[in-house]
C-alpha cells in the first residue's frame, strides 16, 4: 500500500514569492492534516480536513496561507507571499476515523 505522498520534497524560493505544496493521502483516509515543523520543534497543526471540509484551521495564518481539498482526496497548501520565517518542513498526514496518523516525508522549504 502506498503511503502519504508529498511533493516537492525540497523547495528554495526568495521571500515574497508564492509556493505550493501537494499531498496525496493514503487511499480511504478521510482525515488529512497539514503540519509545520520548525527546526528542533515538534509538528504544529496548520489545518485538518474531514473529507473536503476544513474542521480545524485555527492555527493557519490566513493572511498568507491557504489550503484546499476540493474532492476530499488530495490537498494543496499555498503560501503567498512567503516570508523568511516560513522556512520549515511542511508535513502532510492522513488517518482513517479515530485512528493513527500516517505521515508523508514532508516538504523542506527554505525562504531566502
Amino acid at each position, binding site marked *: 500500500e502506498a503511503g502519504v505522498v508529498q511533493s516537492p520534497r525540497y523547495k528554495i524560493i526568495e521571500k515574497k514569492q508564492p509556493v505550493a505544496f501537494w499531498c496525496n493521502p493514503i487511499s480511504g483516509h478521510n482525515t488529512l492534516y497539514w503540519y509545520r515543523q520548525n527546526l528542533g520543534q*515538534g509538528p504544529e497543526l496548520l489545518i485538518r480536513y474531514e473529507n473536503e471540509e476544513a*474542521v*480545524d484551521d485555527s492555527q493557519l495564518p490566513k493572511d498568507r496561507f491557504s489550503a484546499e481539498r476540493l474532492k476530499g482526496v488530495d490537498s494543496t497548501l499555498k503560501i503567498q507571499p512567503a516570508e523568511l520565517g516560513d522556512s520549515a518542513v511542511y508535513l502532510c498526514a492522513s488517518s482513517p476515523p*479515530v485512528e*493513527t496518523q500516517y*505521515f508523508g516525508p514532508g516538504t523542506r522549504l527554505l525562504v531566502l
Partner: protein
Amino acid sequence: AQSVTQLDSQVPVFEEAPVELRCNYSSSVSVYLFWYVQYPNQGLQLLLKYLSGSTLVESINGFEAEFNKSQTSFHLRKPSVHISDTAEYFCAVKGGYQKVTFGTGTKLQVIP
C-alpha cells in the same frame, strides 16, 4: 486545552544501556497516546500507540511505553539501545475533537 511536555530535549546514552524518554500530557478528556520516531532526514513514523486496553504497549523493535493515567505520563523505554535507535522521538496526544498535539521532541543519541 491539551498539551504534551517532553522535558528532555536531548538524551545521550551508551550503546546497550537502557533508556527512558519522558512524556507527560494534560487533557480534560480521555486521550489516545502515541510515540513517533524521526530518523535523520526522514519523515515521522509511528513507533507505538495506546488507544485502550493494556496500559503497556510495545513496538516491534524493543521499545515499550506505559500509560499512567494518575501521573498523566506515557514514558518510552528500551532496556538496551542500539546505534540505529539514534533519532528524534516525539510524543503525541489525541484528545477532544480528534485534535492532535505533539511534544517538542527528544533527540536520542546512542554513543558507541
